[in-house]
């Protein structure tokens, strides 16, 4: 038995951007597609500048759908933060492993299975 969730306004996604010292933590929930990626992309980039973030954690642990737009979102942020000599970390989940693997993300970005682990590593 499967469920489709209708979220407010038809965006099927919630997100939260928090600052934790020099770390920007972006938590996503729901579906990451092109439509939704466009909505959060600029907000993340603004956050990086505004908070002079040196570390960016993208927490996808509560994402239940992601297509290649999510890969584009990750790679785009990777480029931005790398240009600022910062680091990017990803929290994934079982559902996303295949698409992250396929697109080579695991080879260039460090992945964690929980936000706590990512935060601990980033704060070393």
């Amino acid at each position, binding site marked *: 038995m*499967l469920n489709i969730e209708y979220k407010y306004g*038809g965006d099927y996604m919630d997100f939260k951007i928090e600052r934790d010292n020099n770390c920007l933590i972006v938590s996503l929930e729901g579906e990451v*597609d092109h439509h939704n990626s466009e909505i959060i992309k600029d907000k993340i980039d603004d956050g990086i500048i505004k908070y002079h973030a040196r570390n960016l954690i993208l927490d996808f642990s509560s994402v239940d*759908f992601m*297509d*290649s*737009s999510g890969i584009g979102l990750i*790679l785009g942020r990777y480029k931005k933060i790398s240009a600022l000599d910062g680091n990017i970390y990803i929290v994934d989940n079982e559902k996303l492993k295949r698409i992250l693997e*396929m697109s080579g993300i695991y080879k260039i970005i460090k992945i964690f299975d929980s936000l706590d682990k990512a935060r601990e590593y980033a704060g070393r």
Partner: protein
Amino acid sequence: MNNKMHLEFPSYSQNESFARMVISAFVAPMDPTIEELSDIKTAVSEAVTNAIIHGYENDIGTVYMDAEINENKLMVIIKDNGKGIEDVNKARQPLFTSRPDLDRSGMGFTIMETFMDSLDIISNPGEGTTVIMSKFINTKK
């Protein structure tokens, strides 16, 4: 079990999720596994997104989705009347994208190919693009 459907909608990006929900509802009677359903939704999302951002670029055009169930075989066709693809073989290559400026990853066709059992692309510049995908659903019955 046999069935078919034809859907048309404008190329607003919010209709990417609409197309995923329609294909999910259409294949539900085939009783796919969660993985199979996720593969189909992802492939449809890629093809519809391409029609919206590459096919129609900044214009609003009509996206067409046809689907057909023949026994345990699903066929999905996504079509646009947009700008078309000059070199389909190049477009199919992993990581190739004409729009790195839009944070595209160039993985769309690769994902469609991997997640479905077959992928055909018919496209000519100025004549739009038709993407034909099929997948067998493992029936547990």
